[in-house]
């Protein structure tokens, strides 16, 4: 199961007192968790605070994580509960407005709202998107296929190797090369 083995290793290190390992989990899941919290808490700065609180709760409760489920599943539950508790404490409805996500126009609107409605804390940068998309378009076919199969289809290296009829080591190399090329475009924007 993707996300499970490495996460388990990281969790093991956190339990032994390695706070840096928890930092890696934060870097890995911060986007997902903030996005998740924003389903409940519309205000971006509040959502950031709630997400931050969720991560801290997860850290404090790490000793109770037995690994029966994937770490992200466990973290997801903590984030949801933290967001709900936040709403209860604030005595507010879960969402301030309703959007029909089945309606493409409204779905687009909701995305734009998320993008624009975020101050410096939560930013969906068109520049970054364009940079990544340009970089992807400029990749050699084999690199582009490898990284898209991984990132979008969620295939394992072994599955990609089978699909592309090449060794697993080649897949690993192609995916890295693709990321390296994209990262060159991304680095000046993010840093």
């Amino acid at each position, binding site marked *: 199961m993707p996300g499970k083995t490495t996460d388990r290793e990281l969790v093991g290190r956190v339990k032994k007192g390695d*706070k840096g390992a928890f930092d890696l989990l934060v870097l890995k899941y911060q986007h997902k968790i903030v996005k998740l919290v924003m389903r409940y808490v519309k205000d971006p700065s509040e959502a950031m605070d709630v997400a931050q609180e969720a991560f801290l709760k997860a850290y404090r409760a790490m000793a109770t994580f037995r690994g029966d489920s994937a770490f992200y599943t466990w973290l997801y539950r903590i984030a949801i509960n933290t967001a709900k508790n936040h709403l209860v404490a604030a005595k507010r409805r879960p969402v301030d407005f309703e959007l029909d996500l089945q309606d493409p126009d409204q779905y687009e609107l909701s995305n734009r709202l998320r993008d624009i409605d975020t101050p410096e804390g939560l930013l969906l940068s068109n520049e970054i998107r364009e940079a990544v998309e340009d970089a992807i378009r400029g990749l050699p076919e084999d690199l582009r296929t490898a990284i898209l199969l991984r990132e979008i289809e969620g295939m394992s290296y072994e599955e990609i190797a089978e699909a592309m009829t090449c060794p697993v080591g080649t897949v690993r190399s192609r995916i890295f090369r693709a990321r390296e090329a994209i990262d060159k475009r991304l680095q000046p924007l993010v840093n």
Partner: protein
Amino acid sequence: MASPLDFQISALIDDELDSTEFELLAERLARDLPLRAQYSRFAIIGEVLRGAPLLLDSGFAERVRAGVASEPSGPLPTIGGLQSYLRPVLGMAIAASVALVALFSLMPGSQMPISGEAPGMAMQQGGPTYTVPATSTVSSGEPERLEYYFLRHGEYAPMARKSTYSRVIAEPPEADTPGSAEGPGDLDTAAPADDAEGETGQ
């Protein structure tokens, strides 16, 4: 020229790193900020490709890091001082203890059977498949022991499942009932053996 570490960062994002590689990389990531920044950017690439909204506030991770740093250092305490692998063992031990207590509390320890044999033993010997002999070839003391068994069984079994025999021997003696209130009736005349067998065999 990419270093092996760069490859490993990419593999780490994909959870395709083996344990030995992971240990070394985790150590390195703990003190190598540029490497951690690269890890973070690789994570962003994935989010962008999946069309997810981005959190580009580097201060977020910093704030969480500061929050975690203010937590007590050292290995995280396990719950109640128990290792996770001991918890199921403890649970089973408790369950076994409860079962034992229940078993012994159900045994009529203070009321010894007429035959002098421990009632628990009689129940164990009888068990659910105990068959009452149809003939009167039982040895001396055996009928009392069997009746005691039926009486005890009747006390603990639901009413609907009591055998005819156990009800008969539990009732106060009538004028035409053989035996007395203290002494159970004659096994041969009280109930057919197959009735008792049918009840106890269930």
